[in-house]
């Protein structure tokens, strides 16, 4: 009898905890999801590139972007500019592309300082390579950690809005 009760208790607690920590529960955790008009003037100014897509973002993503807006004033002007320029492109990426970009950023950040400084220059050099060479490089297996799915070799940089995609974190 006592053993049955103990067994039942263990099962109930295990089931309750398993239910509580499932991804479904995680997904249901609600963050405050303010409308664009509810943002402060400073937040609206910083996050202006996201204004058209703001309503499509879930509460957690909005929370993240508001946090980014809080950091914005402490950044140097050139970083502020780059951040705002890239916000919209970032919001168009798929979750998997964002994951890959974050991983790649972290691996480049871990480079020794001398190599880190060269990366920007290498990017400029890479941009000037002929398209065939870029395609050949892109067709090689990914280096280091997984980098799929990557973008195919990009055409020369051009201004203008990127195609609509999945709103980002």
């Amino acid at each position: 009898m006592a053993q049955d009760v103990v067994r039942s208790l263990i099962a109930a607690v295990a089931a309750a905890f398993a239910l509580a920590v499932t991804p479904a529960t995680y997904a249901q955790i609600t963050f405050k999801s303010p409308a664009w008009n509810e943002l402060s003037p400073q937040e609206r100014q910083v996050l202006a590139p996201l204004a058209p897509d703001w309503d499509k973002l879930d509460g957690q993503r909005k929370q993240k972007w508001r946090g980014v807006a809080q950091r914005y004033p402490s950044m140097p002007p050139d970083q502020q500019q780059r951040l705002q320029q890239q916000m919209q492109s970032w919001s168009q990426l798929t979750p998997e592309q964002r994951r890959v970009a974050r991983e790649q950023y972290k691996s480049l950040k871990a480079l020794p300082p001398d190599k880190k400084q060269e990366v920007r220059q290498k990017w400029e050099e890479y941009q000037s390579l002929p398209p065939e060479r870029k395609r050949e490089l892109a067709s090689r297996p990914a280096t280091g950690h997984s980098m799929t799915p990557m973008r195919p070799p990009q055409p020369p940089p051009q201004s203008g809005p990127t195609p609509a995609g999945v709103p980002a974190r």
Partner: protein
Amino acid sequence: MTSRETEIANKITTYLDDATAELKAGTVYRLQLARADALARLSDPQRIVAPELAHALAGAGVGRLAPRAPQRPGIWLGLGIALFAVAAGIGWQQWRAFQDTKDFEELDAQLLSSDLPIDAYLDRGFQNWLKTSFDR
């Protein structure tokens, strides 16, 4: 059992035997039925529980059920632990979601303000070009 106790028991038995001899036939019959019933209960433990439960239910109307409720405190304890486990699990998920958001906030702010465009982090050709250049 001491000799003194045995002596007392014998006396009691004698008195009971004498008194029993004077019982009416109907009384003796009912006592025999009660004895048989008691022996049957001893041989079947489930029949012992039933009268207890019946007794408790019978007393429910006069407030005797409440004092008997704590006989199964394990159930209430289990419910309490299960509720605590749910609350702890949800709390942990909340904390994790909050932590993830803070991590993304910091990482994305750095990534988007870095001097490389987003495409550089997504272009496999560039990653291979970089590796080739650094390996030289």
